[in-house]
């Protein structure tokens, strides 16, 4: 039985609403493509979006299907411990607001590597920064594409693996189309449309749930507890998911660090700051994003407990898709087939928009950093050629992610999102902060912190319980690890952040002080003056 049948929904209706979304966004993307000519158009939408527009687009980029379906489901099943994720995801934006967004906008052109390599030896640092950008984007992309398979099974009533593979391929092809035709501008509009649909859909459901309980949160919580039976009381306090052992407590602390420090190092988020004309607009973008994301997470709190109260944890756990089905089941409970169709289509649109944003970031990093600056040594004046390389790269990355998504379909790859955040927090953020604020920081320091953060994160994940060695569940006969039947883990935690983040800061420091290189004082003066005043910053393109 599929969720659609379980909840009395109609796969045809879900698909129909999604098709309307695709049709509308394609028209918008085609219209946006008319002005996409130069590299600044393709990578940064001509830097012509306003702060509020970009803020909505950022929230569209950030609120992935994982945070909508995943957090609502986690709250419905594990109560308070699900809520903890959303707090880390939100507080993280203060790092971006206070320390990163404006300075980055003033200093760089298109990519994170622009800022990291600004006052260093170009080729090695750009290569390192691009490697880390591609790694984070690819982990994140793979998680989204693999999730698409599960979501299809859940919402569109496509059960067999072949049918799911076709749907994953269609999602990938649509995404490639958006990126090729619309560039950053088209992609941004897709994010904006999706964010408006997602946030307004969640708002309607939130008010509906609260209305059912006389606008009283306490009554809602009480109903969620009594519906959960024995141990339901645990929903209202922490510990249901992470309080089991000392290792799981430490694991939660490690995850919290990666969440709060990872956001400001996610390349696809950083790249969004280049789509506005000035640093002041970049600041307004973050302010809008913080309000929208914060309010959205408050909605998911109500939706999660609402699903526990109205649908019941047992019905959610046994539904196809498990915890991820909490929000769709709640939609069906409240508004029947039509609301379920709307929410399903929005969840699907969410995957499409997020993968488009990741693909354009990865393709820009390859074309601008690796091709134009490392291979052509910055001598390629032919910007049209650079954009052509970016488009080809987007097709290659799209094809790889379709393939990866099909192969990873059904695998337990939820850890990939946590891995992307851990790499962003370990390899990217320390290097960004040192570059912007520490005068002595030099090329060797940058290389050590990027490669050290990246390598330590990946190694610790490979030898962690998420890959091998979790105990076998007696009911399913499967281990919760990715690989079955082997155990080569020696790192006790699922999340490496608590080791890899301090390690990367330390390596950045040691690399710097142990190098005989002197930091380039002239370039540091230029970087500091430009980052703080905006002098010489890239201007918007006039059309």
């Amino acid at each position, binding site marked *: 039985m599929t969720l659609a049948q379980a909840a009395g929904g109609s796969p045809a209706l879900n698909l129909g609403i999604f098709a309307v979304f695709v049709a509308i966004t394609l028209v918008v993307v085609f219209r946006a493509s008319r002005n996409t000519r130069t590299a600044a158009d393709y990578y940064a939408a001509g830097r012509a979006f306003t702060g509020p527009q970009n803020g909505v687009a950022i929230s569209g980029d950030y609120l992935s299907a994982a945070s909508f379906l995943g957090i609502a489901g986690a709250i419905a099943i594990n109560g308070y411990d699900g809520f903890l994720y959303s707090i880390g995801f939100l*507080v993280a934006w*203060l790092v971006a607001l206070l320390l990163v967004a404006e300075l980055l906008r003033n200093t760089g052109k298109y990519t994170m590597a622009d800022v990291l390599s600004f006052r260093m030896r170009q080729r090695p640092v750009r290569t390192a920064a691009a490697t880390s950008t591609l790694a984070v984007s690819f982990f994140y992309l793979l998680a989204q594409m693999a999730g698409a398979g599960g979501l299809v099974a859940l919402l569109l009533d496509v059960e067999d693996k072949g049918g799911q593979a076709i749907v994953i391929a269609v999602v990938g092809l649509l995404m490639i189309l958006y990126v090729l035709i619309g560039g950053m501008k088209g992609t941004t509009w897709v994010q904006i449309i999706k964010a408006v649909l997602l946030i307004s859909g969640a708002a309607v459901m939130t008010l509906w749930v609260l209305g059912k309980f006389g606008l009283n949160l*306490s*009554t809602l919580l009480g109903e969620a507890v009594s519906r959960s039976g024995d141990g339901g009381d645990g929903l209202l*306090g922490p510990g249901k998911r992470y309080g089991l052992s000392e290792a799981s407590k430490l694991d939660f602390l490690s995850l919290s660090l990666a969440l709060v420090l990872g956001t400001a190092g996610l390349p696809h988020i950083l790249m969004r700051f280049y789509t506005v004309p000035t640093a002041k607009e970049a600041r307004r973008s973050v302010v809008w994003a*913080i309000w929208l994301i914060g309010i959205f997470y408050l909605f998911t709190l109500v939706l999660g407990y609402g699903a526990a109260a109205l649908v019941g944890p047992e019905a959610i756990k046994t539904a196809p898709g498990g915890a991820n089905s909490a929000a769709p089941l709640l939609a069906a409970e409240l508004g029947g087939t039509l609301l379920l169709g709307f929410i399903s289509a929005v969840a699907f649109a969410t995957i499409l928009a997020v993968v488009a944003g990741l693909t354009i970031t990865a393709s820009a990093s390859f074309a601008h950093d690796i091709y134009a600056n490392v291979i052509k040594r910055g001598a390629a004046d032919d910007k049209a050629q650079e954009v052509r390389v970016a488009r080809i790269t987007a097709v290659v990355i799209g094809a790889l992610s379709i393939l990866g998504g099909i192969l990873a379909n059904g695998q337990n790859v939820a850890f990939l999102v946590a891995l992307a955040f851990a790499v962003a927090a370990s390899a990217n953020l320390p290097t960004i902060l040192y570059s912007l604020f520490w005068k002595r920081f030099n090329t060797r320091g940058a290389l050590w912190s990027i490669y050290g953060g990246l390598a330590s994160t990946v190694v610790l994940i490979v030898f962690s319980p998420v890959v091998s060695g979790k105990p076998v569940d007696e009911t399913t006969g499967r281990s919760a690890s990715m690989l079955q039947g082997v155990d080569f883990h020696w790192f006790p935690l699922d999340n490496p952040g608590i080791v890899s983040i301090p390690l990367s800061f330390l390596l950045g420091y040691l690399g710097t002080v142990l190098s005989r290189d002197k930091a380039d004082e002239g370039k540091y003066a230029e970087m500091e003056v430009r980052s703080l005043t905006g002098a010489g910053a890239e201007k918007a393109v006039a059309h």
Partner: protein
Amino acid sequence: MSTTERAAESGPPGTATWAEVQADPRFRELRRRLRGFVFPMTALFLGWYLLYVLLADYAHEFMSMRVVGNITVGLVLGLLQFVSTFVITTLYVRYANRRLDPLADEIRGEIEGGGR
């Protein structure tokens, strides 16, 4: 586009060098104001977040205490994380508008307008 590319790749467009601007007392004041706000504020919100995470992680009984009805201490503290995030955002925007932007605009105007 071409003018900004040039500005980005050579010295500043005006007569002063970047190092001279960096040594200017007004620029030092701008840097002092920025760092004087963002560094302590970052320490504050990261400390408050860490305190909250540690309480949620190791003080289950305290966090599960009821404040009113079914509202627990943990829920109130969690919602306060939202409130503090919104408050810090608003404070920073006000500070930047009043104390950072005018000075940055003045220095940038001189760099970009000077010598032309």
